[in-house]
């Protein structure tokens, strides 16, 4: 987020301002004004980032499960969208973006009531209003929660899922968003995360992996046929994700500016590179270029470029895309089998692994003229620190929350319900 570096620059300026401006009295000219172009772009971005979750993630995941669990899978993303909206409104936004705490925000925006005092004024050195910023950020909180559901597919109780996602969003998502974007300690370290490689994707990936391990494997994993029931749904979902990601990365410039424009260009390049990388790797090793492979690669590329979008040039994006595509392919096919966990729809393999690759390579390929930070070994070490701290925090807190939810309502459906399928067992509905 560029707004924070702007904030620091303005703070430095403010310190000098009395001396410089006392004579001229021209300070009023530097007050940010609402820019209708920026407002329009941010509201557009908000809409298309919401589209990434419903129906994007919902379809992407629903196509990969068996026919008996399709509605339950769609339901998880759709319900997460509604649930996290309210969680974010009640306290999530406040904990992420209110106050200057090092580790977590404050309660100054509880129920968003504090926001209404300045709702129509430019917000926090930006040229947009706070309701727009708040809603844009809300769509990020929503998609992060929805992404986790992929690793829990086919076997989690719906009540347990809702409880876990609400707690996780408050106690993991909001703090990590605060660390990186809300003025917390990672921002102080200088960790670069333009649009959420760490906050969204590593975060969701680790929570997904922990969830898959705590929940245990699906019944029949490794012996029964669990082939996707309809990959055409997944192709539509992945395509909606690809298109929506222009709002995700482009909107993270929080303005309709040159940075947003470059973010969109490098996003397209990295995504294409990763789709091809996964496709060719699979083609070479397994003999056939699969549909699931090429769309998974595209998503890995989108994830990989997310932290880098406002910091790197096109060639950097190309390398990040190839690396993210190959790494995710390996993690989702080989690593998963070696370590024997059932990350059902590869939330860790795609989002976690590509998130880590993207976060670290952002430190290598950052260009000073683009995002005011030059890449190099020093920046890479800062990036690795950010990644490690996030993985440890998310891993531990996700584990505790899952155990707590297990104690309260039980995490997993009964064997009978799992075999019957979650559509009829949990929701009383099914596909024809």
């Amino acid at each position, binding site marked *: 987020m560029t707004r924070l570096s702007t904030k620091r620059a303005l703070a430095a300026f403010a310190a000098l301002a009395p001396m410089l401006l006392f004579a001229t009295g021209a300070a009023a000219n530097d007050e940010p004004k609402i820019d209708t172009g920026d407002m329009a772009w941010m509201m557009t971005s908000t809409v298309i980032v919401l589209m990434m979750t419903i129906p994007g993630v919902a379809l992407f995941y629903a196509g990969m499960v068996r026919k008996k669990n399709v509605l339950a899978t769609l339901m998880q993303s759709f319900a997460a969208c509604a649930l996290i909206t309210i969680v974010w409104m009640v306290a999530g936004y406040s904990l992420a973006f209110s106050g200057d705490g090092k580790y977590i925000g404050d309660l100054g925006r509880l129920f968003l009531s504090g926001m209404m005092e300045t709702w129509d004024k430019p917000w926090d050195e930006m040229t947009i209003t706070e309701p727009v910023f708040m809603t844009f950020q809300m769509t990020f909180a929503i998609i992060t929660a929805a992404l986790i559901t992929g690793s829990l597919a086919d076997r989690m109780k719906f009540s347990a899922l809702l409880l876990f996602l609400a707690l996780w969003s408050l106690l993991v998502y909001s703090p990590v968003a605060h660390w990186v974007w809300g003025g917390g300690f990672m921002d102080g370290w200088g960790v670069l995360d333009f649009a959420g490689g760490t906050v969204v994707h590593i975060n969701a990936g680790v929570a997904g992996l922990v969830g898959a391990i705590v929940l245990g494997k699906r019944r029949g994993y490794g012996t029964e*046929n*669990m082939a996707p029931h309809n990959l055409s749904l997944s192709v539509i979902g992945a395509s909606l994700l690809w298109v929506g990601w222009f709002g995700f990365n482009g909107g993270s410039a929080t303005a309709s500016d040159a940075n947003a424009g470059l973010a969109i260009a490098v996003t397209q390049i990295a995504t294409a590179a990763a789709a091809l990388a996964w496709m060719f790797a699979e083609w070479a090793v397994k003999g056939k270029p699969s549909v*699931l*492979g090429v769309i998974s690669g595209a998503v890995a590329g989108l994830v990989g470029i997310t932290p880098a979008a406002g910091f790197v040039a096109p060639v950097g994006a190309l390398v990040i895309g190839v690396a993210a595509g190959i790494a995710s392919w390996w993690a*989702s096919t080989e690593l998963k089998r070696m370590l024997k966990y059932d990350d059902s729809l590869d939330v860790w*393999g795609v989002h976690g692994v590509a998130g880590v690759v993207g976060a670290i390579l952002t430190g290598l390929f950052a260009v000073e003229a683009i995002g005011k930070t030059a890449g190099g070994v020093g920046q890479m070490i800062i990036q690795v620190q950010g990644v490690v701290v996030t993985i440890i925090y998310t891993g531990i807190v996700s584990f505790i929350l899952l155990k707590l939810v297990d104690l309260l309502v039980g995490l997993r459906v009964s064997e009978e319900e799992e075999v019957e399928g979650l559509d009829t067992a949990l929701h009383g509905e099914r596909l024809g």
Partner: protein
Amino acid sequence: MKLIMAIIKPFKLDDVREALTPLGVQGLTVSEVKGFGRQKGQTEIYRGAEYHVNFLPKVKIELVVEDGMVDAVCEAITKSAHTGKIGDGKIFVLEVERAIRIRTGETDAAAL
């Protein structure tokens, strides 16, 4: 009267139909079926997870003809459904005792 039942590759259905029409075949029944023979199954791979699919999709056609047409029909199906690769399918010929056209009550050869 004989029942001719043939299991063929799905994409050959139109060729078989075109080959049977000139012989005076008045109708046939088609079903989508699954099964295995010498072709066994095939392997599908999803993100590294391999699934052996034991039953392959085939098309079953069934038609009843008079005894004199059996050889011509079998030859037409054999030729039109042939690719020379494993999995081309099989033809079975069975005796049929009676046939009745429901609309008119006609029986046997008149009902075909």
